[in-house]
């Protein structure tokens, strides 16, 4: 039985509470709500290369060779992923499929961002004008 003498102190709970509240705040700030997933925006070094409507892609769509790492980006069935990449860290491939607005798959070495952009449904249309 390993006995750890280091007892928890009140400040520890403060640290944990602070981290959890930061996590909640960042979720509220950066993750978009129930908007419909509509577009995939693929950009390299801040420049938008592709802007594809996710729902209009019926067949498997492959986007190749955007950089020296020969990554293969695949869009199908309303979702998108890096299928393979020769970049050193493979974070982009491990991100897997993304489909929800606000989600993004990023390949840092190549500078490529694949982002799902949600179009928030416009409920502010004028229903009727009374005169």
């Amino acid at each position: 039985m390993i006995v750890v003498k280091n007892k928890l102190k009140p400040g520890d709970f403060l640290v944990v509470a602070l981290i959890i509240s930061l996590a909640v705040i960042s979720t509220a700030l950066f993750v978009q709500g129930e908007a419909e997933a509509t577009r995939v925006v693929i950009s390299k070094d801040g420049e938008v290369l592709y802007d594809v409507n996710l729902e209009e892609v019926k067949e498997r769509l492959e986007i190749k060779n955007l950089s020296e790492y020969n990554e293969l980006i695949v869009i199908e069935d309303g979702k998108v992923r890096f299928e393979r990449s020769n970049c050193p860290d493979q974070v982009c491939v491990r991100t897997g499929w993304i489909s929800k607005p606000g989600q993004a798959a990023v390949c840092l070495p190549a500078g490529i961002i694949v982002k799902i952009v949600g179009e928030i449904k416009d409920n502010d249309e004028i229903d009727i004008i009374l005169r």
Partner: protein
Amino acid sequence: MKNIVYKRTIKSTIVEGILVTMALILSYVERMIPIGLIIPIPGIKLGLANIVTLFALFYLGIKSALLISLLRCIIAAMLFGGIYSFLFSLSGALLSLLVMSILMGGYSRYFSIFGISIGGAAAHNIGQVIIASLVLQSTAVLPYLSLLLLSSLITGSLTGFTSALLINHFDKIGVSKIN
């Protein structure tokens, strides 16, 4: 410059050297553990090298901890990373060291080694996300911050537990400071 030049004994220099080596080995071992498969968040890391930073902060002081962190980041980048992983690990390590050294000021009174370690792990993730946003000039990575912060509670507890074991052992053999 006066602050940077600090008194070093042969003993502390040797310990610093050993700690840099150990941190490098831990960074290497960490690469072999596929934590990303268990908790699939892009950019998630166990942060094993944080144990060494915490140890250095505890027994050698902030200047040694800073030196060890810098050397680890530079050598790790030359051995198995590139410029991006260097920027990432450096920003994470520096922010984490800053937070841990602040928390260390209240050690045993307000914080245990767990609180310090968890704070350091969270700061590491915040630093990485900031650098990622700057490098990409985009906010696309920000949604991952909340998941990374929650994961840092787990990874920080693990490294905190390991550090607590280490410190217990050093207490037992009667070492409280290395200089």
